């Protein structure tokens, strides 16, 4: 039998076509698309914010209820060293939190007073602009979210956040969690995490855990778009400061001094 170049090409072509038949058919015969129910979102038109009344907060010394409950329910690990530290909500001296609000002749005691810090859930968040995978974004109710599935651990967002609100998992956090809360996922090595304004509690109709845990009622949580909300009333009747407003990030965590 004569087997020339033309004949070889024909047979080769037919072979490739035959091999492609099954996968090709699988592509066009897709079983069915996903049907979901657009749940009536309780978050349309909301803009969540928090007011921290430092006068009330300083009423009781050495209290760590808000920090403790947050890190417990969100499976935040304790590594025991500052380099690896993961923080969602933490406390720093006043002079570190508000360096622009102190002066050298001011009250020495004020400088040392603890200030509770957490993600400011900025209205114009600089962190999300740096994310190359859109793993972090601002949700319609104003919460700056992180999708841990998509985070590639580049840490650009951490460089972008002027408040140091984001932490990176340098190692697998699970062995460093005292007691895992099975209602909330842990994180994995190589992702960035931060405060999520307890969005998993909000959807159940609960307020953030830190707000609930504070016995002094120093934390106020609510909707900025509602003129009757507790946060709006607190903002109206008090002198408010915020961290580094001059950067234009429009933080949604407010402080009453």
């Amino acid at each position, binding site marked *: 039998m004569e087997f020339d170049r033309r004949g070889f090409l024909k047979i080769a072509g037919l072979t490739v076509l035959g091999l492609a038949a099954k996968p090709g058919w699988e592509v066009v015969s897709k*079983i*069915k698309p*996903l*049907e*979901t*129910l*657009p*749940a009536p*979102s309780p*978050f349309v038109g909301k803009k969540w914010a928090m007011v921290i009344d430092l006068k009330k907060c300083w009423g009781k010394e050495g209290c760590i209820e808000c920090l403790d409950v947050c890190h417990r329910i969100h499976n935040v690990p304790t590594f025991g060293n500052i380099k690896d530290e993961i923080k969602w909500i933490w406390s720093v001296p006043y002079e570190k939190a508000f360096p622009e609000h102190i002066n050298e002749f001011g009250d020495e005691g004020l400088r040392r007073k603890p200030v509770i810090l957490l993600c400011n859930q900025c209205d114009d968040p600089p962190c999300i602009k740096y994310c190359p995978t859109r793993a972090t*974004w601002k*949700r319609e109710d104003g919460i700056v*979210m992180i*999708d*841990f*599935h998509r985070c590639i651990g580049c840490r650009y967002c951490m460089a972008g956040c002027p408040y140091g609100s984001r932490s990176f998992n340098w190692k*697998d956090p699970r*062995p460093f*969690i*005292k*007691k*895992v809360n*099975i209602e909330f*996922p*842990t*994180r*994995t090595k190589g992702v960035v995490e931060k405060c999520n304004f307890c969005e998993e509690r909000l*959807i159940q109709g609960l307020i953030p855990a830190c707000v609930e845990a504070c016995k002094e009622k120093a934390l106020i949580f609510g909707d900025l778009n509602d003129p009757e909300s507790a946060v709006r009333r607190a903002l109206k009747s008090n002198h408010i400061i915020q961290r580094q407003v001059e950067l234009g990030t429009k933080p949604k965590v407010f402080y009453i001094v």
Partner: protein
Amino acid sequence: MYDGSKIIAGILIFLILMTFPLWYNASTGKTGYMPKPKIEPKILAEKKQCIEPKEFIRVKHMDLLKDWRESVVRRNIRIYVAGDKKKYNMSLTKTCINCHSNKRDEFCNQCHNYMGVTNNCWDCHTHPKEVSPKGT
């Protein structure tokens, strides 16, 4: 052909080594091995059905889970409408694992190990049976 005998011997040795898994399994009678994902006895007893037909789940569970993930995390949509119009919470740990609570060795890993497919769901998502609390 130069060194024909050596080349042919080499090819033969190569083929024997390459096909070693096949005839080794054949000689030990394991060629017909099929993974058997085990359904929890209580599920069988109650005659509970999976949220979608078995055939669909077998082929498409990974796509379903990915769609659920995107939907819940990114769009805040949490209710899934199954083929039979029943509604389910789109949650791996609350919906799937609620029934398939023997997930690790007896269910998921049966096929995943057989096919050599690894997943990283459980790096973060937790399961009551597998979380061993350290300390308190």
